[in-house]
């Protein structure tokens, strides 16, 4: 770790950097110093984070800072600090973020163990924050009390993204260092094997926090050595009920599921974890909730020496196989503005196809004809439009990597799009139509919805898809920004 006394202060109070006026230094850590700053155009209280960089220092401080510099400007919402600017190593490295009131959850360590209700509610807020972060392609990788703050409105805010992984950015930490970086007591077992792209690692860390906050004991101790940390690859923690006899079964179910060694046995998403924490009465209790002892030595030894043995595959039967081969039609709008909707359609189609290994996918688009111009001649423009759409449909479907025999694309020319889709489905024995519904469209209000008409008139199963709320908000924001910049 860096020795702060060796690093020369690179900035002074009263100095100005890119319009930010430096105030007092509020924190001095091993990796970075924090300063309160002001900006004439910004009313929000601000913090400037400056990495500790001096000769012979651990380059981790630099790389962590670079990750924050890349990630912070890309994430938004109530669960992360707003980012107001970044500066590069070429001049003065810094990030400016909003200064949140209050202290981190670390301040509560003196109060442990907390009451079950309160700890559950805190964990629920953190799980909601994680779900929002994961939706933005980021895995935090350093969930612990000192990385968590709360807004006055109650939402948990995750801070410190220096060890994070962004799914769409180079991972400077994975490539550069062979040892896993993080906080030893909270680190998920798969991290010790070099895995940095599984969001369930954050769910494990939250499980450690919840265990600690409800028992006052860290489930895997405080060992910082790689050898000590590796024990969690095969050794399960003491069940909380062994430590506190009154430990509620629902809470033990949640904690131990978060702490499963294999990520696949944990909650699949942070949202599902948040849902369970919000509805303790609806939790399906398993053997986990009853456990009062750790796994037997035989089980532990089996885990230790049989790593990598795969789980048995479920066997298939004939009826299921037949049901797995339906014809699925996706009705797509290829217009530029329907990106979020088409993405949502793809996610839905992907889920359906994933469970149906021999399903056929037909991608359908309607080229709408005017009522007056039915005698459309095959001019060059019309032909190009047709080809462009076939290309767009095929491209939309390309990530599925479907064998050609399982994929077809169709551009229907019609005056009434809904009628065309219904007719196509009837003629082609389509089992399932997946269609998008527009949000708040004036055209829908005036002309009636295509999806509603398809739902009313078609005779097969229909899935109506809407983009996730986040994507809609982002699209609307983008459109608003575009309007402003014009």
């Amino acid at each position, binding site marked *: 770790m860096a020795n702060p006394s060796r690093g020369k202060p690179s900035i002074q109070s009263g100095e100005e950097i890119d319009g930010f006026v430096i105030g007092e230094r509020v924190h001095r850590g091993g990796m970075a110093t924090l300063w309160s700053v002001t900006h004439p155009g910004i009313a929000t209280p601000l913090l400037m984070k400056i990495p500790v960089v001096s000769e012979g220092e651990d*380059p981790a401080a*630099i*790389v962590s800072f*670079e990750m924050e*510099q*890349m990630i912070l400007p890309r994430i938004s919402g109530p669960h992360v600090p707003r980012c107001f600017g970044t500066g*590069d*190593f*070429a001049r003065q*490295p810094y990030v400016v973020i909003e200064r949140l009131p209050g202290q981190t959850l670390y301040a509560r360590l003196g109060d442990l163990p907390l009451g079950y209700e309160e700890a559950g509610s805190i964990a629920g807020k953190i799980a909601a924050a994680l779900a929002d972060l994961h939706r933005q392609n980021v895995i935090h990788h350093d969930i612990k009390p000192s990385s968590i703050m709360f807004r006055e409105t109650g939402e948990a805010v995750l801070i410190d993204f220096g060890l994070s992984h962004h*799914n*769409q*950015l*180079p*991972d*400077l930490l*994975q*490539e*550069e260092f062979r040892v896993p970086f993080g906080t030893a007591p909270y680190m998920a077992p798969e991290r010790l094997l070099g895995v940095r792209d599984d969001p369930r690692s954050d769910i494990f860390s939250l499980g450690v926090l919840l265990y600690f906050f409800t028992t006052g004991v860290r489930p895997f101790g405080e060992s910082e050595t790689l050898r000590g940390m590796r024990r969690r690859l095969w050794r399960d923690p003491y069940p909380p009920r062994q430590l506190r006899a009154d430990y509620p079964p629902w809470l033990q179910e949640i904690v131990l599921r978060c702490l499963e060694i294999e990520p696949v046995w944990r909650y699949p998403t942070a949202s599902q974890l948040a849902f369970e924490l919000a509805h303790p009465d609806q939790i399906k209790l398993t053997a986990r909730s009853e456990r009062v002892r750790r796994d037997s030595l035989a089980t532990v030894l089996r885990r230790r020496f049989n790593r990598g043995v795969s789980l048995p595959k479920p066997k298939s039967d004939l009826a299921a196989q037949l049901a797995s081969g339906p014809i699925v039609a996706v009705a797509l709008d290829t217009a530029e503005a329907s*990106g979020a909707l*088409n*993405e949502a359609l*793809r996610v839905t189609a992907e889920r359906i196809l994933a469970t149906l290994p021999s399903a056929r996918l037909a991608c359908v688009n309607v080229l709408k004809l005017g009522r007056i111009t039915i005698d459309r001649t095959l001019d060059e423009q019309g032909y190009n439009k047709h*080809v*462009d759409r076939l*290309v*767009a449909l*095929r*491209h939309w479907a*390309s*990530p599925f*990597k479907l064998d050609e025999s399982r994929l077809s694309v169709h551009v229907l020319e019609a005056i009434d799009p809904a009628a065309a889709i219904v007719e196509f489905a009837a003629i082609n024995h389509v089992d399932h139509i997946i269609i998008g519904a527009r949000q708040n469209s004036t055209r829908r209000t005036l002309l009636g919805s295509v999806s509603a008409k398809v739902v009313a008139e078609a005779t097969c199963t229909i899935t109506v898809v809407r983009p996730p709320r986040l994507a809609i908000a982002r699209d609307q924001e983008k459109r608003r920004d575009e309007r402003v910049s014009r």
Partner: protein
Amino acid sequence: MLLAVFADIHANRQAFDACLKAARAKGAERIILLGDYVGYGADPEWTVDAVMGLVEEGAIAVRGNHDNAIGVASETMNAVAQAAIEWTRGRLSALQRRFLADLPLAVEDEDRLYVHSEASSPARWRYVQTTSDAARSIAATSARVTFCGHIHAPALYSMSSAAKMTSFVPTTDVAVQLFVQLLAGRRWLAVIGSVGQPRDGDPAACFATFDTSSGEITYCRVPYDVETAANRIRENGLPRWLADRLLAGR
């Protein structure tokens, strides 16, 4: 300034046309062409004319190994590539052949280097496939960012101030306009991917934009009329495999 960077067009008119349109729609102010304008595809005359026109309007262009092979018969290539080169040579005018032969192997532009294969030895046409290949290229230049093509699949390498390397494969999902800020504290090698013959499993054409003021590179995928490009290859009697691989993106 927003640069649009194209590599390995390989005489694919449909792909290049679609990428140029996409780049203009994004507001590209300057065109950078990283070589291999010909070879494999069926429209070398149109492509070289388009490149000549762009250069006249201020685009920067460097020479690739296929462009080089038009003039230098001894260039070593596999049989299919060689067959395509022989066919192409007959199609190009003397003026077009001269244009290709006169292109530079590398161009420096402020803190950027444009080269077809890599920077350590541009005339040897080495492939950048590993971080050590990338390190060799970055070590051979003082440029902060090197742009290259040649391997027909996008990749992004960086070298930290401590000479540690990172590698990254930009996602090929078209719904994600993937952008990365090329941090000033590092040196970068950006492999752009191919306009005219992508080989990373996605048949959509690749190009990239680079914003010289923000340092952001955006990897773009452009769907285009692959069937027509493949049919042109078949119609012209070029090896059929060259058409098949366009459809598969392999």
